[in-house]
């Protein structure tokens, strides 16, 4: 019974961890804007976690530079299953204007399966909210699949 209570609570509080892999900071400030009272993602239980070990959803922004590649892999390995990966903006999916650069080792799909991609450069906070909401639904499905 206690386990059921924990499971139900975890469904309503998908914590997010944000990793910047060489982003221009545009997507990052929009993600922070999502948590402000105007858009208020915290009413759905989304909360920025301080460490990847506490997170359910990983939000990746930036084109994955050579310097951040190792850190990205290490961070993703620390997130417990079931996890959901959200790519924020154009950069993690394709490299955007940085594609072809000697120091860019994207796209993100090379390292991990991307569950939700939010397009835009940068996406509007409303669009990011939609992406997070979709990620939470996928997370719920993954949890149910794990139980079986």
């Amino acid at each position: 019974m206690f386990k059921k209570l924990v499971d139900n609570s975890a469904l309503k509080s998908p914590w997010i961890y944000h990793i910047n892999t060489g982003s221009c900071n545009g997507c990052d400030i929009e993600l922070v804007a999502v948590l402000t009272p105007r858009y208020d993602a915290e009413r759905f239980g989304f909360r920025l976690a301080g460490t990847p070990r506490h997170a359910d959803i990983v939000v990746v922004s930036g084109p994955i530079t050579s310097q951040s590649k190792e850190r990205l892999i290490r961070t993703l390995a620390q997130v417990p299953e079931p996890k959901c990966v959200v790519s924020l903006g154009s950069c993690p999916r394709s490299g955007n204007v940085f594609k072809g650069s000697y120091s860019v080792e994207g796209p993100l799909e090379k390292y991990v399966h991307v569950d939700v991609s939010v397009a835009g450069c940068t996406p509007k906070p409303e669009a990011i909210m939609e992406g997070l909401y979709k990620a939470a639904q996928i997370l719920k499905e993954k949890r149910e699949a794990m139980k079986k």
Partner: protein
Amino acid sequence: MMFPFLKTAVTNAFTKPSTEKFPNPEDMGAPAYRGRIVFHADRCTDCGNCVKVCAPKAITRTEEPGEGGKYITRAFDLTSCTFCATCADFCEENSIELSQDYHMVATDPKDLIVSGVTFKKDIAGEITCDLDGCIYCGLCMRNCPQKIITVDRKTKTWEIDHSGCVKCGICIGKCPKKVLSFQ
């Protein structure tokens, strides 16, 4: 005053919350917002300007032969786009449009590709200039997307390199004296 915040507390109790509603699919961006690309394939002349000016190389062009012409598919990858609208600015026929729709969330990246198929007829003949009426203004030279026309006003010469011509017809439309034609 004993309760300095009482007035604020009472007024705030009767005002609308500042938090925006969610989900709100009808909500669109600001009037000048550049969102999802809308491609009007029927207007496209296949001049190739959009592919050339795209900084992140988000536009791809594929060609398939058809009866009496060819089918040209132009795909805009929104997961690669910077939404700078340079392609829309350079499009002579205004076939590319950036709408206010910002709801671009997908689990499958294929949903974020906007594409359109244009049928381009095979045009017999090549661009020729009737030099009797030409005033050597150079508008055709300046507007040619392939930059294959050279006009010199001083020496009164009009030259074209036919090998690079894509037959978009922009020069015919720009000519003020209407002396250009496919012949």
